[in-house]
């Protein structure tokens, strides 16, 4: 078997915006230009929302927390050190906002099966073997829904910290160092969280793999 391609630093379907343009907009925003900040928000909004959604697993909470995270980012722009990558800085705010929310609520994310509209709902990697079939049957759809529900449940059974590390790695393609900066932990902790998360998911989803 060939070695799998190492994940790129940018996940598919996510174009890295022109960093010089982002720097220019950030500089303007730091001088109080709301319009420039709005452009930055629109560049990163979907990615930040998806990370938060995966951490809290609730669409409305994710929308509100995304908003809160961006408001905090605006208020703390003066604290942003330009040597750090802007998205790492924003993700730190977003992840902390989401984790604080979960700690405050002192609950596990609810409604894992809430009806959310997914982008590109068709492909789901766990279902790849069945995608080879030319025609899908109702049984396939049932199977697909079952897999999705099982995947969501397994993800939610992870602690928020393990889930967040996995989301930042797999969804955002962040390096150990970047995840460590976002989560304010050591890179060794990131490594062991990712290992534990994968192992736990594998055990939970064994029959689908």
């Amino acid at each position, binding site marked *: *078997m060939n*070695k*799998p391609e*190492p*994940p790129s630093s940018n*996940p*598919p*379907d996510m174009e890295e915006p022109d960093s010089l343009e982002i720097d220019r907009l950030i500089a303007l925003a730091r001088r109080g230009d*709301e319009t420039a900040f*709005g452009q930055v*928000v*629109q560049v990163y*909004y*979907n990615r930040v*929302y*998806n990370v938060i*959604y*995966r951490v809290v697993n609730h*669409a409305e909470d*994710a*929308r509100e927390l*995304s*908003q*809160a995270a*961006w*408001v905090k980012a*605006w*208020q703390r722009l003066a604290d942003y050190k330009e040597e750090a990558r802007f998205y790492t800085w924003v993700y730190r705010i977003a992840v902390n906002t989401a984790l604080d929310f979960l700690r405050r609520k002192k609950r596990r994310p609810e409604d894992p099966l809430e009806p*959310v*509209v*997914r*982008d*590109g709902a068709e*492909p*789901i*990697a*766990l279902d*790849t073997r069945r995608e080879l079939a030319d025609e899908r049957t109702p049984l396939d759809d049932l199977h697909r829904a079952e897999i*999705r529900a099982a*995947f969501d449940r397994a*993800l939610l059974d992870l602690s928020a910290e393990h889930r967040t590390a*996995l*989301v930042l*790695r*797999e*969804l955002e393609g962040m*390096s*150990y160092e970047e995840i460590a900066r976002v989560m304010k932990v050591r890179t060794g902790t990131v*490594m*062991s969280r*990712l*290992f534990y998360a*994968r*192992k736990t*998911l*594998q055990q939970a*989803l064994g029959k689908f*793999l």
Partner: protein
Amino acid sequence: MKKSELELISRGLDGDLSPDERVRLEALRTREPEARTVERQWTVLGDTLRHDQVAAPDATVAWQDIQRAIRQQAGDAGSASTGGWMVRFRWAAGLAVLVVGTVLGLSAWRVLDGRTPVWVMTDPVESPANRVEWVVAEIPGATTMIYTDTETDMTVIWMDVAQNVDPRDS
């Protein structure tokens, strides 16, 4: 499989291996069919997470909401600041009312009591000028005279001492 081998696979998926570790992972894959299975399964899990993304709210609409929230919070912060001044002002106003009320109350009480109100008491009171009516000079043969100098309007005490008398003798 050993935990260290599984960790090696996990780090390999994250592209976090040194050249030596890459060689070790390759040897593990060749030696252990289970290592290949675990690697494939973990890859599938990552792909699933990446491809199973939710549709975020429209970013433009979201920005409008964020902008509103920013302005509202700025407004709240401004109100809180103004509110602080208002609170302090209320304290100052209350203190002033207390002082004025106390003075008026005391004055009314004094008036009712047939005495001069407080504020009237602060007016300068005319007092009679000091007058020197007499002077004692214990000097033998000395005479004294008291008069008002017309130019300076000052009281002058004039004393004549008799000749050939030494004041130190007194």
